[in-house]
């Protein structure tokens, strides 16, 4: 108890000290004494509110002063974040900085990052959405490719149709894609009603390096050479995007079973199988296979433990026998198996032959 009271006392003291140092920093910045190290005082400053108009004016001056070092200008801009979120004029001012191609890359990029930071709940950004979109669309064609990629990502997150077509173009022509292909697929995939299945299947086909069309009937089935490792992220994102659609469960199960693919791809695929029948079949195949990667077998065990349609799995006596057998493999398997039977109110040593 004393310990708690002491910690509160200490905290009270620090809060007061912080207030004092803010007051001092504010005074120095308003006085504009050229001999001081401006950045030091900006660091000591609290976030500015819209009520403090004189300080906003001073900080704006610092941001706009091209003579000052970039980090000082960025610090000043950062302290204005809360005002910008609530002030249409300041937001438009920030838009103009971000759009100004003659400005430094650092300041423009930081400006765009600030917009991301305030995007949750900023009233100015809400009411200025059309203007914000206009700025982002202009940035997509900016010579600064980092800005262009970020802007495209934000637009696509908001399901902007023009941005989506730029992403699709990038997936088909990776050389001119503004964002990594895996991200492009992910962004299209989050628009579940967007109608982008075909292009995602196309991307998956190309990442797998197969000539067969990758639709719901596709099986990779070991005939193909292993796809290049850098394609794994693309494959994984395509799986997540396609998993929303029940038609693709066969395709995902096929990928999960495929030993030519990496562990990372396969474990993601295993975790994306929702249909219990599909999962039971795959789990038996993988867990019973002595040649199989132990890690993949464990993934199957965990997927069984967390399947949302568990009662269906429990009816599968063969699956229970498989889970019982694998318990002998190691402590990890034993724990997982025990838990699987506990969920059914059985013990690992139950006699499966007696019927479950």
């Amino acid at each position, binding site marked *: 108890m004393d310990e708690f009271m002491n910690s509160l006392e200490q905290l*009270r003291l620090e809060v007061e000290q912080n207030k004092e140092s803010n007051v001092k920093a504010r005074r120095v910045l308003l006085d504009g004494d050229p001999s001081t190290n401006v950045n030091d005082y900006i660091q000591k400053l*609290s*976030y500015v509110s819209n009520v403090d108009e004189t300080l906003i004016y001073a900080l704006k001056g610092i941001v706009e002063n091209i003579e000052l070092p970039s980090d000082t200008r960025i610090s000043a801009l950062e302290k204005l974040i809360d005002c910008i979120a609530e002030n249409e004029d300041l937001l438009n001012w920030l838009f103009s900085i971000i759009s100004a191609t003659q400005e430094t890359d650092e300041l423009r990029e930081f400006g765009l990052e600030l917009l991301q930071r*305030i995007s949750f*709940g900023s009233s100015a950004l809400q009411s200025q959405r059309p203007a914000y979109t206009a700025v982002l669309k202009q940035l997509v064609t900016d010579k600064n490719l980092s800005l262009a990629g970020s802007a495209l990502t934000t637009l696509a997150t908001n399901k902007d149709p023009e941005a989506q077509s730029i992403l699709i173009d990038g997936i088909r022509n990776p050389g001119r894609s503004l964002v*990594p292909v895996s991200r492009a697929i992910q962004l299209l995939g989050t628009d579940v009603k967007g109608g982008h299945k075909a292009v995602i299947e196309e991307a998956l086909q190309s990442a797998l390096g197969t000539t067969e069309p990758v639709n719901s009937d596709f099986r990779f089935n070991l005939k193909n050479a292993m796809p290049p490792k850098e394609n794994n992220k693309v494959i994984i994102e395509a799986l997540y995007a396609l998993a929303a659609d029940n038609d693709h469960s066969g395709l995902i199960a096929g990928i999960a079973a495929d030993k030519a693919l990496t562990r990372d791809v396969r474990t993601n695929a295993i975790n994306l199988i929702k249909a219990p029948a599909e999962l039971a079949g795959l789990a038996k195949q993988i867990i019973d296979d002595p040649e199989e990667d132990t*890690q993949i077998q464990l993934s199957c065990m965990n997927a069984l433990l967390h399947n949302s349609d568990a009662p269906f799995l429990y009816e599968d006596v063969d699956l229970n026998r498989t889970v019982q057998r694998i318990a002998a493999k190691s402590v990890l398997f034993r724990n997982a198996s025990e838990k699987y039977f506990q969920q059914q109110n059985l013990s690992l040593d139950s006699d499966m032959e007696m019927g479950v």
Partner: protein
Amino acid sequence: MSINLNVNEFSGENYYIGYTPLPCKLLQSSSQELRVKLKNKVEDQGGQLVFRKQKSDVAVSELNLVIPANGTPVEFFIAGKYRFASRADKDTVLVVTDAASGMVLFEQAMMVRVRRNANDLSDHERKRFLDALFDFNKSGQYELFCDIHNDDGYGEAHRRYGFLPWHRAFLLDLERQLQIKYPDVTLPYWDFHKPAPKVFTPDFMGQPDSTNGRLKFNDSNPLFKWSVKGIDGLVRLNSFANGTPTLKSLNETLGLSNLFSFANQVGMESNPHNNAHGSFGRGPVTNPVTAPQDPIFYLLHCNVDRLWAVWQALYKRYDINQTTTYPYVGNGSRTSGPFVGDFTKDTLWPWNQDVLPPRPAVRRGSGMPQPVGYPAGSWPESVFQMEQVIDYQGIHTDKPNYFDYEDIYFQ
């Protein structure tokens, strides 16, 4: 001779105790009074209890009592010891010994259950929390719970004075629903002012891929199979890596002249709250409509709520009739602002099922879940006024909400 314990009018096997002292009774059946000592069975291990004869007394780790004869109870108070919360269910044992001989007369296992820093959780605590969350999602209740925060609910909970109390209730609702099956689980908080290297990992909240934000999980982490509304997996960019997001500092937050203000005055809602959401580059957590779909939402909000609780402790802001505690005492209007939902005497949507304007026209969710099966009272009630969640430890109202933060003691 038998000894019986009663905590907050409850007798049974499951005792979850926070920092808020709970009234207890000890009874014994013999015809002579009994001099006993109450203490923890094991010191320095597991959760620890403290005792008080009166609620206002200084807490002690051993208490001498005289239990009258023939079933007349002796009364005292029990609470968890500051900074000595349990790490697992029933790892705390209360013993009643004979004051003279030291012989153990009675034992009862308990849990000192408080909300803990997510970065400090043990493997076991982490696993219990994740399992509880996953089970709740599997039951189909999670996504309907998330909808409360969705779109039309946004206006009830955001950009207004009621932001903090509303979210306190929202968190408590989830925590209590998790506790129905996992009574030892509490919501952990992500202290975003300190690095949290053990939070953004594959065995907890996931480790983001740097190019696309797809979270990596360990096989044993149930979040690997996270799925909400048919969308599988989670995406969340985390540009601050193992550092901290750039936010209003702890000292600055606690020094705010008005925590509850929003818009131009900038209280806690804009910064650190909004900016903490925005500090994640991408993913559901960055958009108010989808944010609760990502479990990090609850860790983030739990910390926002904790910061309010720290401020309450710092300046003793518990008296619900004082405008320094909360700026709007009384009832709000339905026709001019500040509106109903911003005042201490207003009931909160959706728990009140009110669908008349300016409340959303849509009925979502049910009343506040009531704790059963362990010692806790019915606060807040199923339909409750905002003031019932403000003084959450019941310091002034004696209506505690039965949750505590591990670093905020009962004063």
